[in-house]
């Protein structure tokens, strides 16, 4: 079982080293690929110093394009399993163990760590929580599966999901559209409760005005996505 941890990072020099060390501490056999999404700081150097492979994008593609780079890498090198961990330290690599069983037992093609699936609150601004809820509600409605956190990038994916996303992955807030894509391609998604940390350093790429814009954009993309012909052919189930 060849596993790869994909860590997208944009100006995360302050936290990326720690994230890599923690992933190694969780499982030293996982290869770590940092996708440096056009950072202006030392993200790339820090990551290389901590022993990760670094793929450096020539300019900022946004989270979707960055993560897809990782999926392409994983698909090309024949990895069986991908773990996604954000470079800002928000995801606790020790909790990867909570995400693994569902995928390893082939109960799901992708397992997502949800902040809201279990007890224990996720502390965030009210508007942000509202946005996350609204997106989750829309996706639940469209997919007919109760989802609580469709914006979580803390995920474990198997080969089928890797190949699908290497071919076609959405751009902004990709997880929301990806949930709809998975549903259309009849891949199985499960959520397990995790707790997330406050970001260690750096600035979130999501500001208040932008998040409204993204909300509108993502809702449009999701709604249109239900009607759209898939870029890669659906597998017959």
């Amino acid at each position: 079982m060849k596993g790869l941890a994909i860590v997208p990072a944009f100006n995360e020099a302050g936290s990326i080293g720690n994230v890599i060390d923690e992933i190694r501490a969780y499982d030293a056999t996982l290869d770590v690929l940092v996708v440096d999404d056009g950072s202006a700081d030392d993200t790339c150097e820090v990551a290389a110093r901590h022993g990760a492979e670094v793929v450096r994008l020539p300019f900022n593609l946004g989270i979707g394009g960055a993560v897809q780079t990782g999926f392409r890498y994983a698909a090309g090198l024949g990895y069986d399993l991908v773990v996604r961990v954000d470079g800002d330290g928000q995801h606790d690599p020790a909790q990867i163990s909570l995400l693994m069983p569902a995928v390893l037992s082939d109960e799901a093609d992708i397992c997502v760590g949800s902040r809201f699936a279990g007890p224990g609150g996720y502390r965030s601004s009210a508007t942000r929580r509202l946005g996350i809820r609204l997106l989750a509600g829309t996706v639940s409605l469209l997919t007919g599966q109760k989802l609580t956190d469709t914006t979580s990038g803390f995920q474990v994916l198997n080969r089928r999901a890797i190949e699908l996303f290497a071919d076609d992955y959405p751009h902004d807030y990709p997880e929301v559209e990806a949930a709809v894509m998975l549903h259309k391609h009849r891949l199985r998604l499960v959520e397990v409760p995790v707790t997330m940390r406050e970001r260690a350093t750096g600035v979130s790429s999501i500001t208040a005005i932008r998040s409204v814009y993204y909300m509108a954009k993502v809702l449009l993309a999701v709604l249109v996505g239900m009607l759209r012909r898939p870029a890669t052919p659906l597998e017959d189930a």
Partner: protein
Amino acid sequence: MMLAAGQTPLKVSIAASIASILLLLIVFELIRSRRLRERYALLWLATGVVLLVLSAWRGGLNAIASWVGVETYPPAVLFAVALLFVLAVLLHYSLVLSKLGDQSVVLAQRVALLELELRKRDRVEAPESAADEAAEPAARPR
């Protein structure tokens, strides 16, 4: 001077015709000098031709204006048609931009992955320099 209702003033027809011909000439010149690709020029040529026809063919413009309910000032139809064509050109641009954007994402990803592949090969060929590289990865592109 009072206009007869539903008639296009001659001066408007002449001015609009000249403008349309100018547009056509400019587009032709841009194609000829290879600064504008034919596929992008087609919409502009269509715009120029339609506007020229509507400007020069006064009876036609008046007739179309009365069909669509423009009773007093037929050249308004000319503006409307011109506006529609401009919208079509803009929409076409959005399509082209979207496609270029998607393509540049794929290019950026491939370039980045190829660079990583190259660095890996260098490491295999010259393992002793791996430590140097870890400390200072290849020069930044900017």
